[in-house]
């Protein structure tokens, strides 16, 4: 009952004109970003963060705007998957498999509306899952001391590569690189400068927003320059939407699919290291095995093959918020970016968030419900409008993305130095993506590096310099075990799953939602 009272308070916070407008704006921008190939949830949210700050939005308002973008992008990705057979973002990859064949049969409108409904179902129930699961996780997390936190951070890094990357060594490299970057600046405990090489600008450390925008948004511009993908992927003649309501029989047929996929997607989202892409992948594969044993209909325009990945990825998007809010440890790229928002606003996510800033948590959750209804309303009748967006050619879009990134970062600090660092990260991001090094562990490393080190040092200082304190409690040992299994298991069995997921990958492969 307490939960419902908190939720009611949350609605009181979210239902102000400013917050409703922000949610509406976020949903609209998010759907566009999701729909456009080249802009996904993580880089979409990344370029908006600096703007949210420089506009002076408070924590709740910023989070409402940015999570609406996140949810919106999950809806938007399906549009170009279905109409053009090009995933608008990574989680929408699986939607191509049955969505495009449906569109070829002249059922594009039905596929779009059905996937809109599936997205709604997935996101709606995942938000309920978030409400009930997150407080339980908080109860466990309150038992954590510094040693357990250190183990938890290690767990996050070690499991991250299992799903998102094809090569564990590269994922470990990325994590270490991110952690190393976080070390730059004055050491918080002793006050000595580290890795600054006398550069005054570096004493404060690298601003992780600069790193995020550079790695995610600018590197995308370089990818487009490399391939000179200047032309729009859609022309007016190719987009024919047709009837926009799915027949009742189709809804009935897909209802069990949506329920199963929502549950699977949500679980996939909560697990560390997995994001919405895994959610949609698991949901689609499971559904295919369950209802289409002979492989007759899936891949040829089966409505269930459209509903499953869409319910799955939206449910996973909600599930991924659970560890981010309750533990302060995000498991996917976009939730890592959202964590950056919280950290920049001096809010430490984790168990204390629920007691210290209940307004932020419950306001955010209420806003997610509101955003979800807005998205359903936007994505069915207005889907025609969003299909027009696909006709914007990247040669116009990408310069705008670059310039908005510059404006945002310049707005925070007003210094050219940060812009130069951002360009550096943009080039670095391009090189690393070429090498198939995942970018998410780098971001997570720069975000969590200092907290991880502080917990390590606190744990050992409390125990008078005894390093074995790190594996002293059953809880810590358990976390280390999971971490080690999470790192080793993919080396043995994981290659197959990842190879399958990456079969349909593209240049966006190393950015995980």
């Amino acid at each position: 009952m307490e939960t419902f009272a908190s939720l009611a308070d949350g609605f009181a916070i979210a239902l102000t004109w400013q917050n409703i407008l922000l949610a509406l704006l976020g949903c609209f921008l998010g759907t566009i970003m999701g729909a456009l190939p080249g802009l996904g949830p993580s880089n979409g949210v990344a370029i908006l963060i600096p703007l949210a700050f420089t506009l002076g939005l408070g924590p709740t308002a910023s989070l409402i705007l940015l999570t609406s973008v996140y949810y919106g992008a999950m809806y938007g990705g399906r549009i170009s998957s279905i109409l053009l057979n090009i995933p608008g973002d990574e989680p929408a990859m699986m939607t191509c498999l049955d969505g495009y064949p449906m569109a070829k049969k002249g059922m594009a409108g039905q596929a779009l509306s059905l996937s809109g409904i599936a997205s709604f179902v997935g996101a709606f129930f995942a938000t309920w899952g978030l409400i009930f699961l997150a407080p339980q996780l908080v109860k466990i997390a309150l038992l954590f001391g510094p040693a357990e936190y250190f183990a938890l951070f290690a767990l996050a890094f070690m499991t991250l590569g299992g799903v998102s990357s094809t090569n564990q060594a590269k994922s470990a490299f990325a994590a270490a690189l991110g952690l190393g970057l976080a070390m730059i600046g004055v050491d918080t405990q002793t006050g000595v400068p580290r890795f600054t090489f006398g550069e005054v600008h570096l004493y404060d450390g690298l601003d992780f927003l600069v790193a995020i925008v550079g790695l995610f948004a600018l590197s995308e511009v370089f990818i487009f320059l490399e391939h000179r993908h200047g032309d729009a992927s859609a022309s007016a003649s190719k987009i024919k939407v047709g009837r926009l309501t799915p027949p009742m029989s189709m809804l009935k047929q897909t209802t069990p699919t949506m329920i199963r996929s929502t549950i699977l997607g949500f679980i996939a989202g909560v697990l560390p290291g997995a994001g919405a892409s895994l959610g949609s992948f698991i949901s689609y594969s499971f559904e295919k095995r369950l209802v289409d044993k002979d492989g007759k209909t899936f891949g040829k325009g089966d409505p269930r093959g459209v509903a499953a990945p869409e319910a799955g990825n939206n449910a996973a998007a909600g599930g991924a918020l659970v560890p981010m809010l309750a533990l302060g440890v995000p498991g996917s790229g976009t939730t890592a970016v959202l964590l950056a928002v919280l950290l920049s606003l001096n809010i430490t996510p984790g168990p204390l968030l629920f007691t210290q800033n209940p307004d932020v948590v419950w306001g955010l959750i209420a806003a997610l419900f509101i955003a979800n209804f807005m998205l359903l309303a936007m994505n069915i009748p207005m889907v025609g409008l969003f299909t027009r967006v696909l006709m914007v050619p990247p040669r116009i879009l990408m310069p705008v993305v670059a310039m908005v990134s510059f404006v945002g970062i310049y707005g925070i600090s007003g210094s050219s130095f940060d812009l130069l660092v951002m360009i550096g990260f943009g080039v670095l991001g391009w090189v690393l993506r070429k090498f198939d090094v995942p970018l998410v562990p780098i971001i997570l490393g720069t975000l969590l590096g200092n907290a991880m080190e502080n917990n390590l040092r606190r744990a050992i200082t409390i125990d008078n310099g005894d390093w074995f304190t790190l594996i002293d409690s059953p809880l810590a040992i358990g976390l280390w075990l999971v971490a080690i299994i999470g790192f080793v298991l993919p080396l043995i069995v994981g290659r197959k799953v990842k190879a399958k997921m990456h079969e349909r990958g593209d240049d966006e492969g190393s950015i995980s939602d």
Partner: protein
Amino acid sequence: MSDRIFGVVGILLAIGFAFAALAIEESFLSDAVGPKAFPLIIAAILGLSSLAIALKPDASPAWPSLGRLAEILAAAVVMILYAELLPELGFIIATCFAAGYLTWRLGSGFLASVATGVGTSVGIYVIFHLVLGLSLARGPLGF
């Protein structure tokens, strides 16, 4: 082959990082762990993972032709110039050039590039500065 080079560069980076960590001056007020330990652990992981990459390389990525590589380099240089000249020229002028250049390199014609550059620049100025009140770099002409 690419991965082997990448791994070697990573190992060099790890060694450099470890040396820089050892060079950190300890303060007289230090905790039990000190400011060096964690960076050294990171350097070790960085080195080991780089070694693993070098020993067990993936297939080489499809590298762009020299021309395309120059393209990316040129874009980076334009962006650096943009960052440096932003406070000198002001937001609108600098952004016109940078956005125009990028859209030209992505395949717009000359007139279309000029139009996109001016449009992007003025559009961002209007939305972010005039409507939302964000402070942008101010040049000698006041915008």
